[in-house]
């Protein structure tokens, strides 16, 4: 089941660049929450702080508190443990090129030491079905490389890979921005099904996409969160003038 995320006065830097300034918000469990805003506004940095990927950059720095299901991910557990609980799907599909489709999905478990063939078989099948990819690849699971699939299939493979380690939260950093409309629609359908089991945070450039998939939407601008509310409210009656300007396409 998904868990809620509590963020308190989160700040992040790249070197001296203060990319996230004092972000506080509550992301409810088992919903999709969209983050929108112009390029460089800090929304990607924000999701990367939610699974401690930001600190893998040598010049990245974070302060503040992030509680996922009541656990403070910056003090209670290790970064590796955090990333096991909070899955991430990146902007560009990034399957492991030397691995088969099967091995890609099983990689998260295998690299953490799971060896039981029967369990792995089950997990791979379940994850691929969850990611709506099973029917397309079931015949060459171990024959084809993950890199031989189409872009949209690769992205669903990456989603399956993230789901296989059974996370509580799924972070998606512009998961459809490199995909064609048909593949994008498939990913969006997927988000609807996935939020029954997971809490989803999705960064997107595409405002229609936010409106379609998310219950709540946050608007970021220049490292600050300007407004966070139900998606309906943000898109029909925003409280902040800057949100309205962005939604109506006056800038960004």
């Amino acid at each position, binding site marked *: 089941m998904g868990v809620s995320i509590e963020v308190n006065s989160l700040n992040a830097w790249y070197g001296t660049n203060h990319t996230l300034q004092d972000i506080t918000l509550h992301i409810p469990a088992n919903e999709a929450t969209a983050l929108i805003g112009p390029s460089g506004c800090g929304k990607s940095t924000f999701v990367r702080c939610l*699974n401690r*990927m930001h600190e*893998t950059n040598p010049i990245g720095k974070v302060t503040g508190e992030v509680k996922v299901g009541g656990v403070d991910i910056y003090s209670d557990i290790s970064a*590796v*443990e*955090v*990333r*096991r*609980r909070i*899955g*991430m799907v*990146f902007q*560009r599909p*990034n*399957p*492991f*090129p*030397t*691995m*088969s489709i099967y091995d890609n999905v099983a*990689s*998260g478990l295998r*690299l*953490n030491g799971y060896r039981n063939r029967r369990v792995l078989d089950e997990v791979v099948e379940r994850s691929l079905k969850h990611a709506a990819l099973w029917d397309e690849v079931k015949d*060459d699971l171990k*024959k*084809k*490389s993950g*890199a*031989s*699939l189409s872009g949209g299939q690769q992205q669903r493979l*990456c989603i399956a*890979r*993230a789901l296989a*380690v059974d996370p509580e939260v799924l972070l998606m950093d512009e998961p459809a921005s490199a995909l064609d409309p048909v593949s994008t629609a498939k990913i969006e359908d997927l988000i609807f099904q996935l939020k029954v089991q997971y809490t989803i945070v999705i960064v997107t450039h595409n405002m229609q996409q936010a409106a379609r998939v998310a219950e709540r939407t946050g608007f970021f601008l220049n490292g600050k969160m300007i407004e966070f509310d139900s998606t309906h409210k943000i898109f029909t009656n925003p409280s902040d003038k800057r949100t309205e300007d962005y939604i109506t396409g006056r800038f960004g």
Partner: protein
Amino acid sequence: MNHLASVLAVLATILVIAPLVAIFIDLVYKGTSSLNLNFFTKIPAPVGEEGGGMANAIVGSAVLLGLASLLGIPMGIAAGIYLAEYGRGTKLSNVVRFTADVLNGVPSIVMGVAVYALVVVPSKGYSALAGGVALGIMMIPTVARTTEEMLLMVPHSIREAALGLGVPTWRSMVSITLKTAMPGVITGCMLAFARVAGETAPLIFTAFGNQFWSTSLNQPIAALPLQIYVYALSPYDEWHRLAWAGSLVLIALIVVSVSLVRYVTTRGVLKGAS
């Protein structure tokens, strides 16, 4: 104009390939006439006697190259990993990189003298081990630098994918990054291997050569390049012929071992893997 450029390119290509082909033809022509079963099974015959072979030198070369690979490949790969992953941008990594490049340019005879002082003198004798150390050290820079280059070519997104799955950094390094770079790393190892397989100079002061059977690591050991060197400089026609045959066998062994490694390591590659 375009026509001229392509003609020039083709000419240059022929110019590059011609010496190699000429050497190879000459080698096959002069080498095969002395190749027989004795060459592979007998040790060198005393001066004045007919026959004899280079069995001990073939085995000796295998032992020396095995020792060299055992030392040079793991150390080279480890250094390459350090350069590409852990030490990026640090002062130490710049020092290591510079040292590797200089080491690569050190004349092989100097390497032989250095290992003579470091290994042969303290252990009071020429030995297979000393020869293996000399060749192994010569392999390190090539292996280290190719490993570094190949690891840097692995896209950052692949590393992030592994980290994002909750895989510890070291595990992602070994099982994802290094594995993705493996074909290139193996090419680097093979280059280094092929280069030292033909080295004579560093062995003169270390492995020394041996006219008799020996596979002992602390005794002088025969090696194909050394044997070829001695035979080619001798005044006897019979020995000259054996030197030709030895050269052909040396080249054939290098080609076979490199192809074998290539075959074995590319066997499991999947459809569509890049």
